[in-house]
């Protein structure tokens, strides 16, 4: 295998096999998603193979369906609000973990990461049990708090990685030059931290928008998010408009972060 690494030698058989395998794996990773998108534009009345032509009929069917519109609104509000909360809480924790050294730092860092290794089902059941004991009905607030705490470990990690390069010197310089704490924060800290915050926000928003397992436990019977709506549609009958809904969701969860990271890079350059 390592023969391919030395420039003098020609690629070996092993290396060519690896190359073929690599291509197959990438195909394996993307073909199913591409098939969802293709079928969303299928003009055949069954919405499955063989493809007969292209049409937007399934997207049209989606827009006529009010319950899907409601699910989109719920998902969007939930994603925006839980991501805001997770970003605020997460950025403070990340700054503490990156900028300060204090006793028990490693332990706290590990504690914050712990929920990532726990099955979502167990976390969902546990939180729901609290609600039951408090005699509260399942509500939007439960989804909001739940999504926030599920996203938090990821947000803290992503932000930590982004904040590592942040230097304290700038703030010290600003304060030496006579800036007050508030002014320092507004003019120095905030612009430096903003890219990490935006990155964390988009990550949390996507996690919330995509979440299904815990949401299935936490949602009150009347409320549907887009993923739970798809889940319910898949369990009753496989209607072709599901692929259109899936394609729409793929577009949202992939394009939004891409646009966000583009905006972030612009912002970082300006700052």
């Amino acid at each position, binding site marked *: 295998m*390592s023969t391919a690494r030395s420039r003098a030698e020609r690629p070996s058989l092993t290396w060519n096999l690896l190359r073929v395998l*690599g291509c197959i794996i990438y195909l394996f990773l993307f073909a199913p998603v591409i098939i969802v998108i293709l079928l969303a534009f299928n003009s055949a009345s069954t919405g499955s193979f063989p493809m007969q032509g292209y049409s937007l009929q399934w997207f049209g069917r989606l827009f006529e369906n009010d319950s899907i519109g409601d699910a989109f609104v719920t998902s969007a509000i939930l994603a925006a609000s839980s991501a805001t909360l997770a970003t605020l809480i997460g950025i403070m924790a990340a700054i503490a973990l990156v900028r300060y050294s204090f006793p028990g730092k490693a332990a706290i860092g590990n504690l914050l990461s712990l929920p990532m290794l726990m099955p979502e089902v167990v976390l969902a059941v546990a939180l729901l*049990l609290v609600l039951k004991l408090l005699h509260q009905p399942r509500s939007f607030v439960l989804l909001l708090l739940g999504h*926030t705490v599920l996203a938090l470990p990821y947000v803290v990690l992503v932000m930590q990685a982004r904040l590592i390069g942040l230097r304290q010197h700038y703030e010290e310089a600003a304060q030496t030059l006579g800036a007050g704490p508030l002014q320092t924060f507004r003019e120095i800290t905030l612009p430096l931290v903003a890219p990490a915050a935006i990155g964390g926000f988009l990550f949390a928003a996507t996690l919330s928008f995509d979440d299904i397992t815990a949401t299935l436990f936490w949602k009150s019977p009347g409320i549907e998010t887009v*993923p739970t709506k798809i889940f319910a549609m898949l369990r009753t009958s496989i209607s072709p408009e599901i692929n259109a809904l899936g394609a729409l969701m793929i577009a949202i969860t992939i394009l939004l972060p891409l646009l966000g990271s583009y905006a972030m890079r612009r912002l970082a350059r300006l700052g």
Partner: protein
Amino acid sequence: MSAMGHPPTYAKGVIGRRRSQWQVGESDKTRRLREKAAYRPFLLLSPALISLLFLILAPLILIFVYSFWLRTADGRDMPAFQFDNWQSVLSDPFYWQGLAGTFAMSGVTTIICAILGYPTAYFLARCRVRNKSLLLLLLFLPFWISIVIRSLAWINVLGRQGFVNATLMALGLIHAPLNLLYNDFSVIMGLVYLDLPYMIINVYVSLDGIDRNIEAAAKTLGCSPWQSFRAVTLPLSLPGLGAGCLLSFILAAGSFVTPSLLGGPDTSFFAQLIYDATIDQLDWPTGSVLSLLLLTALSLVVVTYNRFMSLNDVYRSFAK
């Protein structure tokens, strides 16, 4: 710096004393600053820790307490300390089969991911293509797509009118569609699909971090390519492979949506049993016991792993 403004006629001792006075004064100031800052990280961490405490840790303790409560005949739960819930779950072979089945399927998923993922990561780490960063970025793309859609995708691939059957029929290789969907096979395909990017990324990160001089040295010392891979590259990349395997296994064993959508009527992943007990039957004491059983079984896996490898490798891969 304190001596700068003083005339040079001062005796050395005086300058020395003055300087030390300055230093004492400054260290007082810094100490006060430091003490003032000492609580600051905890202040910054408190919202995160409080939400972790109230939304994760306390609820987990609560299901532990609740698992000992008494479920009365009319379906109410009374505070109690008795082991009926535990006994009825632990003595029921149905749940043990569920746990064993879940772990077996997750194990198979993990092994397939390792076999497919390691060579792919090796290829990525060692290839010299111009758009390698694009190839790496593509690996992260699936994470942005909801699990429900990545499962739905396999219905389109494996279903009776799906891609595989349609292609085989069009080629004339089969005359009736194969039953590829709603069985253990489709569940494992779906789980491999979810876990494989984690595996590739983890292995890639550790392969990429290996000092290439070590491999060159092994070669200089007379190792064949295969020997240097066996003796140098593979052992050095084990932390990444281990982290990838742990993540794959845990994600698969806790999965609920994929087996629900791609599994058959007799597929019973443990998470589905928990859902049935809590949401469908509203039997919270049993649901609590089942949740704790899954958590304990997975914790044993993590603890065993942590004895041999470091959990930090696992966390690190998330932040990449």
